[in-house]
Structure formats: structure tokens, C-alpha cells
């Protein structure tokens, strides 16, 4: 391996490997060796080496994933894409950029915003997470409500299959014939191929942006507002909700100006042509007040707007101040079921005597209940697991799903039978094995392993520092 990537680009000392045994989830698993290629050719050589030695391998971007997608479950080789971090081409004429997998999500926008463009999917970890991981997990974010998730913004990918074959799918051109392999690979959680190049869509930045904070005494009224917006045919760029438990933690940590005594707030962003934004601002304010918002504030400056978003994006850090260990969920429900799902979550919190704070992408029904627990109390851990399972079961029964953007990984794979019939799971397995016949690439992910579910471990200090 050192011959392929150079002596400094291979780690195999135990103290070095320690840093690669976790991601943003609660899972752990140590690789036997980590290699950092600089080119697709080096990836191919590494993959072929692993194929000859018949050892498992997994790709890793920044390790910010929340479902254990990059955790080596069987040791083996980890391919880190940190050195493949170049933006290869920015092509404004064709509204796209060609990037290596290790490019940080936000860096694409930073590179093109001067010309009035941006890359739309914006996961909360966008300052750290990489495009390769975004494609593998089909990452979302607050602004995917209006513009779609990663799969809607990937025009083409180059990838290396577990036998070392380089495959190019999609491209700058539209409507290329044949099966949509880029659509199949996007969101396959690194189980079918290693992404080595991505063509991403660039979008024109909006003319005007307005951010509102609507404050409610009752969480149910905030949820009703979301349904009310849909009923009025208003699709904001983002609709985020924080409940009272959450916003008090956030306010203490960030001082974003959130009210300490409220039951819930909605953070609503409108963007587009000035004319549209001005009209929608009044409509949205109206819907909020009709649904008993006690106050609607509009950010008066870019600084105020940034502060409101800082509160949202630093929420997990704020939770960490209160409880170093917590369990984040990612269930999705139809938009009309947000209010009753929230009510159920509070019921679960009471039943299991746990603190559950809620922060979520309300606009598309993507809930993120955060269950706080003390890992030193084994029975509390047990209650946390049960509460989590009960919430996800409720989401499924409400016509939703168990993950909106974090992925199945090794965290929710054993819940998959609650969502899909055996024939559907079998078909997923068959499709994975077409690309990854012996399942050496990222084993133990996405599909049930039958090992039990929702195992929770405390986060380390370094995780907390890097993840959010």
C-alpha cells in the first residue's frame, strides 16, 4: 500500500487507527489500515490489492455520518478521501462543477458564490462533510424542502467497483440512455462502489432571502402552521422547527435570541425574486398568526439572519452541553401527521421518563427527536432504546419512514424489516451483489444483519468537537 500511495499516506499504528474507528454516530469499529489515495488510479490499485487479499474495505470522507455508514464492521482497509479534495472544474455555462469526493460540501458554494451560484443540498454538517459521503448517503439538509436532496443535484459520477473497474455514469449532458445507475448508486451507502468524482449541479443564487422566526406557546400550533402553509400553496425554501426543550438548550449555548419561555418556534426561510419573497412574507406571517403564533419576527439584517441559523445549526452542540450522551433520530412522517407525531413523542418521553428535545425539518416532515440519557445508568439506556424504537414504529405507522437523510447504515439496518417486506429487502441485496458480489465493500450496512438494533454508546469528546 505504501508503494501505491506513498509512505506517509498509510496509517496502521494503533494510536492512529483510533481516530478512524468512529463517525458522527454512536457506532464504533476499527480498520486495520487506512490509506489516503490522491487519484482514481491509486484508488483502483488499492481496491485491486484488497480484492487479491480478499479483505473488506470501506470508503470514508469526513466521518460526519450519523448512521455508522463508514464504520468498518469487519476491520480491513479504509480508503480515506481526504487527499482527493480538489475542485477539478467549474463550468458556469453548463451550470455544474466537477469535484473529487473529498471536497467539503460548503467549499463548492464558497468557490462559486462570487459568480452568483451555489450548491443547494446543505446538510447541517456542511462545513465538514464531503461530497463523496453526501452522494453515498444521499444527504439532505434544511433547504432540500424546495430544491430536493443530493440525488437531485448529482449529474454524473465516476466510481470504482470492488473489483477495481472504473465506471462513469451520467454526465454533463441530460437524457443519456440506459439505466439510471447514478440514481442507484446515490444513497447506496457505500455498499456498491467507491465514488471518485462527482459532477454536481450549480444553481443560481436567489435575489432576495428573508428569514422569519415564529414563536408559539404550543408545539401543536407550530405543527399546524406547517400544514397551513402547504394548504396555501406556499413552499418556503426551509421550514425548521425547534420545540421548547430544544430552544432553551440552544439559547443558553448560542444566544441566538430565541425566547426562553416558548413552546416551539418555526424558522422559516423564503427566497427567490424580490417580488415573490415580499408577497410570501406577508402570506407566511398571516398563516403563522392564524395558527396562534404569539409573535413573528423577521430578521432585519444578514447578521440577524445568520444568528438565527447559527442557533439551528449548532443545536446538537447545545444538547451536548446538557447531556454528553444523546440519541438522534431521523424518522419522516407525512406533513399532515407532524402534530400527532410530536404529541406521541412527548407521550413517549413521559412514559419512559426521559428528556426528548425536538429539532427538525418540519417542511418535509423529517423529525429529529433527540433523546438525552445517562449511559452510566444501564436501565436508562434500555429505556432510551425502547423509546427510540417506539417513536420510529409510530413514524412507520403514520405512513412515514425510519430515515429521511441520515441513512440506514448499521444503526437502523435491523429495523428495515419494519419498513419493507422480505421480497423487497431481497431485491436490494441482489442489486448490491451485482456490484459487490462477496459484500466485501462496506459489509454489514443497509440490510438487516439480525444482530439486534439501536445499540447506543456514549460519544467521545473528540467526536463532539468534530461532528457538528
Amino acid at each position, binding site marked *: 500500500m505504501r508503494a501505491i500511495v506513498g509512505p506517509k499516506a498509510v496509517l496502521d499504528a494503533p494510536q492512529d487507527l483510533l481516530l478512524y474507528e468512529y463517525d458522527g454516530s454512536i457506532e464504533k469499529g476499527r480498520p486495520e489500515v487506512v490509506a489516503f489515495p490522491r487519484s482514481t488510479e491509486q484508488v483502483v490499485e488499492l481496491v485491486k490489492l484488497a480484492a487479491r487479499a480478499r479483505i473488506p474495505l470501506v470508503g470514508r470522507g469526513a466521518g460526519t455520518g450519523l448512521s455508522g455508514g463508514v464504520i468498518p464492521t469487519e476491520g480491513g482497509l479504509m480508503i480515506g478521501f481526504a487527499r482527493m479534495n480538489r475542485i477539478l472544474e467549474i463550468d458556469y455555462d453548463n451550470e455544474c462543477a466537477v469535484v473529487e469526493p473529498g471536497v467539503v460540501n460548503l467549499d463548492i458554494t464558497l468557490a462559486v458564490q462570487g459568480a452568483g451560484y451555489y450548491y443547494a443540498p446543505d446538510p447541517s454538517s456542511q462545513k465538514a462533510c464531503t461530497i463523496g459521503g453526501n452522494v453515498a448517503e444521499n444527504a439532505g439538509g434544511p433547504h432540500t424542502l424546495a430544491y430536493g436532496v443530493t440525488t437531485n443535484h448529482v449529474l454524473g459520477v465516476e466510481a470504482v467497483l470492488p473489483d477495481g473497474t472504473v465506471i462513469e455514469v451520467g454526465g454533463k449532458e441530460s437524457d443519456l440512455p440506459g439505466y439510471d445507475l447514478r440514481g442507484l448508486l446515490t444513497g447506496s451507502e457505500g455498499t456498491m462502489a467507491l465514488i471518485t468524482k462527482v459532477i454536481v449541479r450549480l444553481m443560481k443564487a436567489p435575489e432576495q432571502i428573508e428569514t422569519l422566526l415564529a414563536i408559539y406557546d404550543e408545539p401543536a400550533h407550530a405543527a399546524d402552521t406547517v400544514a397551513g402553509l402547504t394548504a396555501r400553496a406556499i413552499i418556503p425554501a426551509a421550514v425548521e422547527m425547534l420545540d421548547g426543550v430544544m430552544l432553551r438548550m440552544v439559547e443558553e449555548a448560542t444566544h441566538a435570541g430565541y425566547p426562553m419561555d416558548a413552546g416551539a418556534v418555526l424558522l422559516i426561510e423564503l427566497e427567490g425574486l424580490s417580488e415573490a419573497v415580499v408577497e410570501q412574507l406577508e402570506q407566511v406571517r398571516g398563516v403563522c398568526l392564524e395558527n396562534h403564533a404569539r409573535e413573528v419576527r423577521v430578521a432585519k439584517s444578514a447578521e440577524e439572519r445568520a444568528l438565527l441559523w447559527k442557533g439551528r445549526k449548532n443545536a446538537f452542540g447545545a444538547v451536548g452541553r446538557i447531556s454528553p450522551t444523546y440519541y438522534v433520530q431521523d424518522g419522516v412522517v407525512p406533513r399532515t401527521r407532524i402534530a400527532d407525531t410530536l404529541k406521541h413523542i412527548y407521550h413517549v418521553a413521559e412514559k419512559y421518563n426521559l428528556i426528548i428535545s425536538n429539532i427538525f425539518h418540519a417542511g418535509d416532515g423529517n423529525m429529529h427527536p433527540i433523546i438525552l440519557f445517562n449511559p452510566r445508568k444501564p436501565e436508562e439506556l434500555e429505556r432510551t432504546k425502547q423509546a427510540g424504537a417506539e417513536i420510529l414504529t409510530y413514524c412507520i405507522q403514520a405512513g412515514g419512514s425510519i430515515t429521511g437523510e441520515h441513512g440506514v447504515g448499521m444503526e437502523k439496518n435491523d429495523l428495515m424489516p419494519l419498513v419493507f417486506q422480505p421480497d423487497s429487502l431481497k431485491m436490494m441485496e*441482489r442489486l448490491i451483489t451485482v456490484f459487490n458480489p462477496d459484500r466485501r465493500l462496506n459489509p454489514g450496512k443497509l440490510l438487516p444483519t439480525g444482530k439486534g438494533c439501536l445499540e447506543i454508546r456514549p460519544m467521545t469528546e473528540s467526536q463532539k468537537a468534530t461532528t457538528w
Partner: protein
Amino acid sequence: MGEMSEQIRRPTTVEELAAELAAGAAAGQAMEIGGAFTKRRLGGSATAAARTISTSALDQTLAYEPADLTISVGAGMPWASLTQLLADNGQILPLDPPFPGATVGGVLAADLSGPRRRRYGTARDVVIGMRFAAVDGKVVESGGMVVKNVTGLDMGKLMIGSMGTLGAIATANFKVSPRPETSGTCAFLSDSTDKLAKLRGRMLQGVAQPTALDLLNAACGRGLEIDFGADFVLLAEATGSEAVVKRSRATFETLARETGVEFLALEETAAQRLWRAIRDFHPASLEAHPKGLLLRISTTATQLGEALALLAGLAPDAWVLSRAANTVIWCSLDSWESGARTLERLRKAGHKTLVESAPPEASLERWVAGGPALEAMRRLKAELDPQGLLNRGRLWGKI
């Protein structure tokens, strides 16, 4: 084309559909799967099949909660019925596919879309869940009824555009959009593809973005009976509130003046007739050119003007329609024999050109495909349909 089968089988449940496939597979019969079979001349025609299966009886609305902005329907539902149901609730699913009698399943299997894709995308952007029957008789489900979902592989993507070669789409779930308050259409006339290509670029660089942006030549305009009397016309639709449409139109007019292109604002009824005619470019051109060639050119913005100029020089009488923002061009030529030269020149100039339709006797390379991506597609086909029974000949017999 299904001549061998004594009748079209029309299962009434998803399970029956799966059983039809399994029975065909057990007997080793070649099967043609379709909805209304409106696109038999498109995408590589299916060869004679012993068993013809239509999903047309799977035409029910399975779930529709307008406030959730989602709908689930059977694959056999006519696309027109689906959009009518949504329109009754002030909502749209603006794929605008050609072929008036097409079913939901057929639209997805052929991955057809229309002018408003600039704003709303194509099938892959609006399908949130799907059930399909596999050739082994299993019913497979992907996605669900929520707009954001990464639970499991996105198998629906694989079925979109597969032309029924991997299985039979049985039901589909969509995310839908609220109907915009109003719309306005502008036409830009010029004899210069260069000027229109430049105008196109400037419109797309602006903050006032068109919802639809199509370009057609005079022959296409005459064929579709929407002639503007210029060699080329670029058509832009703006949607949104009155103020947004007004502002967009003013912006487009200014750009037209700066580019030296004639500008026309169209009346609502004229605009609707225009977009309807453009939507049905495929069936109209196939009917006008029964022994012709229908080409699909996937090019880039940088090469769009050049490709259009090449077509103007080589085949001035061909119908040319471009979804200009997405830089796809369709070109319908009246004779496949003379059209073969145009095809060759396009490919030589580096434009990725596909023969969407040609008479069976035309000896042409329909799809220039190869390499590891095609290999991967063949392996997927072999896994899902090991005997190669489903829609033989579709996808130009390449997979």
C-alpha cells in the same frame, strides 16, 4: 409487436400482475409489458412476444391527501386522469409527457418529460416511491409516501427509463406541487441560432428564471401548426404570482432587445395551445415521418448553438425541437436513409446522438454504447431477468 399473443392480459391487482410475469417466466415465454402501448415506436421496439401484459387495469388512486402534496396511483392510470385529479385540487405534476393516451407506468418506464422540466425536473425528481413486479413473481417496493426518504436502495430510479426490461411498474408515488398562481409565455424570433443561444445563456444566468425554455425551427413550427414565420423561435414560460410573471417578462424583453432578437408576448390561450402542441412533438413527428428517423441529441450548453447550426445546414426540413435549458435536441427527419448522413455528422462532431425511433429495416447504430457502464447495466438485466424475456428489443436490444 405482440402479434403472436392471442390477447392482451390485463391483471387487475398487483399480485395478479406478478403472477402473470411468473407464469410467463415459467413457460420461458417472451413477454411484452406495457400500459396503453402508445410508444411502441420509441426506445427500440419490442420484438414479437408470446405473452402481452398491460397494466392498464391497475388504474386506481391508492392514496391522495392533498395537504401532504403526495399521491399514489396504479401504473395503469392514464396520465391525463392523474393530472386532472390533481388539477381539481389546485395541484400539478408537471412532467407534461407526450402521447395523449399514455399511462403513468408507461411515462415512467420511458422516462418522458416536457417543457417545464427546467423548473420541476423529470420523473426521477418527482417519484418518491414505487412498487414493481419482478419476473420471478415477487412484488418489490422502494421508497414510500414521504418526500424525503433514504430508507434502502432507491430502486425506483432503476425502473425509470428501463422501458420495462427489468420488471413491470405496478404503482407509483409522487410528490406534487401547488399550481402556480399564473403564467406568461414569451416568444423570441430570430434567423440566427447564435443569437438565440446567447439569449438562452443570458436568461439562465439571471435571477428571473424561466419555468420552461424550448427552441424550435421553422419546419417544426409548421409541422406542429405553431409557425412564427422566423427560422427559429425560442419560447419561455414564466410562472408564479402576477408580479413575478410581470417582472420575468420585462427582464426577458430587455434581454431580447440587447441580443437583437424579436420579442412577442403571447396571450394565455395561444400559449396553452402552443405548449400542448410542443408537448406532443413525439407522436406528431412520428406520424408525419412514418419512415423517418427521430434523433435525440444530448449536448452541452457550450455545444448547443453549434449542434443547431449543424442541423440547419444538413437537414433544413427536419423538425427540430430543443429543451434549451437542458440542452437536449430532438430532430425528426422524414427519411431514415437520407437522415443517416445527418446522424453520422452529428456523431462525428462529438454530439451524443441516440436514434429514438427508426423503421425496423433501418440499418443504423441506434445507441452507441459500451464500456463498464453498459457492462453493469447488462449484469443488472441478467440478475433481474436472467432468461431475457421482458420487452426484448427494447433499449435498442443493447442490454
